[in-house]
């Protein structure tokens, strides 16, 4: 079969090679690690989509509450539970943003309300548009802060534990087991009781046990990596421990670390939501995406927009972080460099 095909090759499939000068040139410009990563990230459509969504949502979270004339806490009970109404989109019927409630009754007309509430109002008559973006702002703040601190502690702890192995590893892992063994809930409750409820105590509460997952993963990777040939080679050549960790081990385990971080962010958003669920979340009247979804859940059958809008934003945010994370993984992996 192979033979036959070779016979049938026609000459016009061939073309003379380019001139000598071209051959001498290095086909691929020498790029720094990060520049190269960026080039590869750019080719990944999913990652770019994720990046754009994250940027847009962050921008909205920062600027939307500033731009609106309403704020997130002023109540007006006479304007409570208004359905969403967005001027142009109201013509698109399946979006249900025409200011009509689920029975098709135009509440805005009935109450003679001129202002358009894009995301409607909640049961205390607060502008949901402002609350949603204010909530996004708080959630992002909590999530990113918690993820970064987890990352820092996790890498150092897991790295040391996995790298040195033996007794050190054993003791460090037992400490982690103890930490995880104590229900997070009790620790968090104590935390919130001792400190005032607020953004910083929520972040702290999440960190107490949050970093252990990252530490375990880094350790697992470390154990795997340090048995690999290139590490042994480097060791044989007399590389110091710090060089081994910094130059060989960390870059090689960056993939799993980034993926884990991209999970820590949504994880933190949800831990916060869970805290709201058991009543220990953000202090009212401040809002977070988690607390909005939680509040909205009770309205699932009656005023579903209070649940659906924050849910969509949470989902979009997390989806984007994940797509971006995947893209970054591919882009940062030294083995994928060609």
């Amino acid at each position, binding site marked *: 079969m192979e033979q036959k095909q070779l016979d049938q090759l026609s000459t016009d499939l061939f073309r003379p090679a380019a001139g000598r000068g071209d051959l001498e040139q290095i086909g691929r410009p020498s790029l720094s690690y990060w520049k190269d990563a960026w080039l590869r990230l750019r080719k990944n459509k999913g990652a770019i989509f994720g990046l754009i969504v994250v940027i847009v949502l962050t921008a909205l979270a920062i600027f939307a509450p500033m731009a609106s004339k309403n704020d997130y806490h002023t109540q007006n*009970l006479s304007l*409570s539970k208004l359905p969403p109404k967005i001027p142009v989109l109201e013509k698109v019927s399946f979006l249900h943003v025409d200011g009509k409630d689920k029975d098709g009754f135009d509440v805005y007309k009935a109450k003679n309300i001129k202002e358009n509430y894009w995301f409607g109002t909640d*049961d*205390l008559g607060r502008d949901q548009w402002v609350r949603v973006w204010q909530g996004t702002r708080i959630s992002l703040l909590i999530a990113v802060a918690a993820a970064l601190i987890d990352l820092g502690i996790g890498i150092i702890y897991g790295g040391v534990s996995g790298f040195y192995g033996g007794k050190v590893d054993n003791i460090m892992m037992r400490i982690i087991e103890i930490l995880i063994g104590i229900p997070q809930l009790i620790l968090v409750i104590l935390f919130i009781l001792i400190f005032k*409820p607020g953004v910083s105590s929520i972040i702290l509460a999440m960190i107490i046990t949050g970093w252990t997952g990252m530490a375990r993963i880094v350790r697992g990777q470390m154990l795997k990596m340090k048995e690999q040939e290139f590490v042994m080679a480097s060791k044989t050549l007399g590389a110091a421990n710090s060089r081994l960790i910094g130059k060989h081990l960390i870059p090689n385990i960056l993939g799993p670390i980034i993926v884990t971080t991209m999970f820590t962010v949504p994880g933190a958003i949800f831990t916060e939501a869970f805290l709201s669920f058991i009543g220990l979340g953000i202090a*009212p009247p401040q809002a977070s995406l988690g607390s909005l979804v939680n509040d909205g859940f*009770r309205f*699932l*059958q*009656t005023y579903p927009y209070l649940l659906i809008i924050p849910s969509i934003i949470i989902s979009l945010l997390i989806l984007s972080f994940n797509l971006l994370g995947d893209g970054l993984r591919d882009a940062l992996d030294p083995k994928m460099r060609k």
Partner: protein
Amino acid sequence: MNKKFSFLLVLVLALSTFLAACSSSSSDKAGSDNKSGSGSGSGKKDQVLNLIATAEIPSMDSTLATDSVSFLVMNNVYEGLYRLGKNNEPVLGMAAEEPKVSADGKTYTFKLRDAKWSNGDPVTANDFVYSWRRAVDPATAAEYAYMLYDVKNAEEINTGKAKPDALGIKAVDDKTLEITLKNNVPYFKSLLSFGTFYPENEKFVKSQGKNYALEANTGVYNGPFTLSDWKHEQSFQLKKNPTYWDKDTVKLNTINFNIVKDTATAVNLFETNKVDRVTLNAEFVDKYKNNKEFGSYPETSVFFLRLNEKNKVLANRDARKAIDMAWDKKSFVDVILNNGSQPANYLVPSDFAKGPDGKDFRETNGDLSKLDVAEAKKLWAKAKKEAGFDKVSLELLNYDDDNSKKISQYLKEQLESNLDGLTITIKPQPFKQKLDLESKGNYDFSFAGWGPDYQDPMTFIDMFVTGGAHNQMGYSNKQYDKLVADAKGPLLSDLNARWKAMLDAEKILMDDAAISPMYQRGTSYLQRDYVKGIVKHPFGGDFGYKWASIEQ
């Protein structure tokens, strides 16, 4: 290609074996559970009522129970000397006839009727003596022992100053019971219908030891129903009691309770005909309020703001009055609670207790405060001068559930916008921690509630006497203290004067703005048309099913 296919095939097979394993392991379970028959189609014909309980039954031991689910079940499977009747008046239960009362009103002599426990034992006077002594014995550590404190020596026994057999209750013979009271309280009959006063079958309790009333078959019942099945955290079932003395009145054969904690789930079960009655929250009232199966009724719990006078601003009467008048209770109840609750401008709830004149307490005393923002602003300005402050920050202590958070936010917004220079910080705390902070007085003002212990306004009125355990805000008024003391002592023999004293005491409380009343809780529900005769009680067990039936 083939390999790929076989790989998928393996996965599919793995998945299907897993599913098969699961279904076979639980199919027998499904079979055994069907007999509880929670389908409502058959329910109609069979006099089966399907209901929801919001929590597992914490206790079926009548001396230990303290919560609404326990009292609800116990009210239907046990019976005291009296039971609350269809009109919420005490009617004869285990007592055969009205008692002989001594001239000083302190000694009651009861004749017991010929009633039986569900195991065939007769209900005797000794069963009452046994359970009452057990309740006040400090070794039992019954939390509701204080309910019996009106009985002679009960408090002394409970605090270890006397022996249990000194209690003012005596079995003259098997069917005659003599009770001696400390004071001739007028509400004693209704108290006798309360859970802590039920009899207990001594022989049975002792034979079961530690297991008494922990399972359906380790309890014994003397009420209209028996607890026939109890799957912890999941469901329980009541069946008509064939040994009940008044069994001909009882129409229902079976009442199935499923434990469901989430309101939306409960409503969905109602929608799919799994249950016959469900309690609604604010969100669902909007959806169902025009439904013909919708109803609502006021409860007897009253919620209010404790204004802690340890705080120097709140120690000022005008400041307290300003706070009480500055927020809109009506909109709050209509929009936020939206469940049949009523705005409260009083402490003693409506439809709870009637005076010697036959009039409801509330009807006589009416509303004792009102919304008046202009007046509130004036009083607030006056308070600023008197107490010497310009800006003040107060901490609102509250529970940490969703509803309490809504309430906190509303109060914060209302008070801050109506009273200049006032900032409110919200402190949500878990249930027990909130109570602890409150009892230590570590708060500025807090959201609190009170449900009655017995059917008399005094259960509300005496809360705030100087130094009282429930006066956790340092309130003190001599005139009020005296009225309460009189109503509990010398005036017991003059019920009209006593009633008047309680009316006046409430007026003083409200005039001092010791508290800022918020609302009297209400409940909205959906109930199938064919369910008739469920009686709602104002205290003790929430419902009586003795007279309930399913009508075609």
